[in-house]
Every structure is written in C-alpha cells, then in structure tokens.
C-alpha cells in the first residue's frame, strides 16, 4: 500500500511538472500574436464597460473589437496605431469628461501625425478633454458646439453613430434647441433628416442613421450620403458592443 507521504510527493511532482509545462508553453503561444499599438485611452474588449486608462501610446496583445470607434493612424513612430474616437463614457470611462454636441475637429496631441481629424458623432456626447482655444468652438451651458466649416464626408466614420452605449451611460444635457446662434447642424440629427438627434434617445449613444439619413457633413458632400453607397461598401463587424 502506498503511504500518504509518497502520494503527496506524487501529487506535488505532477503539479510542478504541469505548471512548468504551462510556463514553457504559454509565452510561445502568447508571443505568436504581435503587440497592437493604441494611442491613448480606449475601451477594452468586449466593450461592456471595462476601460483602459493609459493616456499615452501603449501596446496590448489584442486587436480592437469594433472598428467603427477607432481610426487607424499611420506614419507614426513604431508603426500604425489605433485611436479611439468614440465617446469614452459610452463604453465605461468614468473619469473627468467634457460635453460636446455634433461633429467637430478632434485634437489628438498624442498623434500629431494623424493630421486634422474630425469627430463624427452626431448629437450630444463627451470627450475627455476640452478643445484647444478656437473661434469656431463655442462653449454654451457646459457643452461645446462647432461653428466652423463642416467636416469632410466620411461614410465609414459616420458608422460610429450606430454604436450603442452601456446601460449606465448618461449623455450631456443638450439638444438642438440649445444651440448657440450660428450653429449649423451636421449629420443624422440635422433638420430634414429622418433620424432623431442622440439626445432624443437617452441611453443610446447617438442617432442610428436610417436608410435615408445623411452622413456627417452630408450637406457639403451629398454624394457621399447616398444610402446605396453605404450598403455597397458593407459594414464592419459590430464586435462586442452591447
């Protein structure tokens, strides 16, 4: 009969061998996936409220799960990077935030190589920082409004308005009736559009463009807003956004 002590030795030996085996196998398996560069803070997969709070260029082992909320910035040092361009609070960010309404220029100090970027979110939303001082950005009742020329039409970027926020999301309190003088609405919430502005649907991230909805900047570039073109291009996988 085997003594309890020898049984214990056997169990320990098996455990040690198993853990050693994992230790060897895991790095090789994990290292097979290259690191992905992220520019600043971003939601974590599967977009159900976990957020990465690293406000610098950094690397993870995983790819972004929903390309509607990312812009791929090329030409940067150490390769292209993924920049989150959605409302951070949509997907779990709980830090300080600033209210915005409608599309506006997006300031990205971490990636100057990105050039001039626009946020294509229609309706009320947040960003982490206030815009740099500009005559075209007006602060009214705690919300920034963009009064400059409309952003260039970009069908794929306008898909960001289809992303749905987590249940806890509360959009900034603002709608078109609160717009400052001279404000010209862009995108699906604009007059004449069949889709309501985001603030009309609390809990949702933004208006969901209908088949006849204009894309951001549609007034300036109506050709890009043709619904047939959207379908022809096809939509990316929605990922894990709830």
């Amino acid at each position, binding site marked *: 009969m085997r003594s309890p002590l020898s049984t214990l030795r056997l169990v320990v030996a098996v455990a040690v061998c198993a853990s050693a085996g994992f230790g060897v196998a895991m790095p090789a398996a994990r*290292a097979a996936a290259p*690191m992905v560069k992220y520019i600043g803070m971003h939601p974590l997969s599967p977009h159900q409220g*976990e*957020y*990465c709070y690293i406000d610098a260029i*950094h*690397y993870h082992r995983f790819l972004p799960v929903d390309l509607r909320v990312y812009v791929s910035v090329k030409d940067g040092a150490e390769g292209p990077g993924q920049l989150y361009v959605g409302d951070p609070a949509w997907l779990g960010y709980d830090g300080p935030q600033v209210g915005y309404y409608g599309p506006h220029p997006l300031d990205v100090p971490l990636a100057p190589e990105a050039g001039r970027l626009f946020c294509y979110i229609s309706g009320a939303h947040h960003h982490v920082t206030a815009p740099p001082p500009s005559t075209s950005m007006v602060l009214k009742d705690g919300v920034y409004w963009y009064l400059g020329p409309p952003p260039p039409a970009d069908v794929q970027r306008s898909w960001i308005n289809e992303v749905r926020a987590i249940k806890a999301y509360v959009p900034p309190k603002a709608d078109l009736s609160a717009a400052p003088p001279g404000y010209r609405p862009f995108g699906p919430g604009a007059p004449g559009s069949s889709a309501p502005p985001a603030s009309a649907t609390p809990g949702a991230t933004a208006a969901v463009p209908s088949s006849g909805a204009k894309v951001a900047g549609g007034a300036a570039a109506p050709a890009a807003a043709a619904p047939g073109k959207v379908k022809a291009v096809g939509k990316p996988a929605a990922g894990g956004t709830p």
Partner: protein
Amino acid sequence: MSCTLAAGDWSLARWWRRSAPLLAAIALALVPSAGCRRSHVAGTPSTDGVLEAFRNAGLDVAGVANAEPDAWGADVCSSGKVSGVEVVICEFTSDEQLGKTRADTVRDWNSFNIDTGLVLHNQRTLLIVADRGRQDPQGRAIGKMVTAFKRVQ
C-alpha cells in the same frame, strides 16, 4: 606680535593633532554612504525623482532597486515592480541611444509574454512598463505612472 602668532600656530597644531583621528573616523564613516549614492545624468529627470513622483501619486515603489544600466545601453537605471507591474527607469546621455533602446524594447515585446507594454520618455529619461499576467488590467496604475512621469522636471 610674532610671539602671539607663534602661540596661535602652536594652538592650531595642537588642535589638529588632537582632532585628526576623530576627523579621519568621521570621513571614513561618510565614505560608504557617499558610495551608495549614484551620480545622475545632468539635464534630465533622475530615476530617484521619478520614483519620488510615483510615490507621491500613491504608487508602491518598494520593489524598485538600482539596476545594471549596460543591459539597456543607459547610464543609470532602476527597475522592479510598481504596484505589481514591471518597471524600468533609465537615464541616458545620448538621444540616439535612448531612441535605439526604445525601438528595441517595442520590437522585443513581440517575442515575450507581455499583456500591456508602454515606453515613454521625458527628456533623456526613459520609462518602460511591462504588465505580465494582467496585474493592471484597466491600466489605472500605469495611467498614474504616465501622469506622474510626464510632470517630473
């Protein structure tokens, strides 16, 4: 007058003869502690200054110690765990070497089991952070390090 001076010289000599052993003992006692202090690279935040900033940000830096800088092509380095995450802080005299170490580090991450990596410089001081085993899954500790590191003068 000359007699007074001679008396003064004699007093000084006697004081020196009596005090010399004591002064020598004090000097010897000071030598080891002076040897422990590292000289830092001028014109860039010191590793000690960065660690102090981390400490002030509420991070646990007890696991960080002086490290061999040659492995990083640097002049002064400290490394260890900060709030469970592996950290290396190095001072460089050369911008070129700093850039090379930075690029090599990012490239090498593709061969190692790292979940999150960050490399950031402030003047000629480099901060390398590697999270293995998802010790800081939301990057809150790393985020604090980044904020504190950027503010160090």
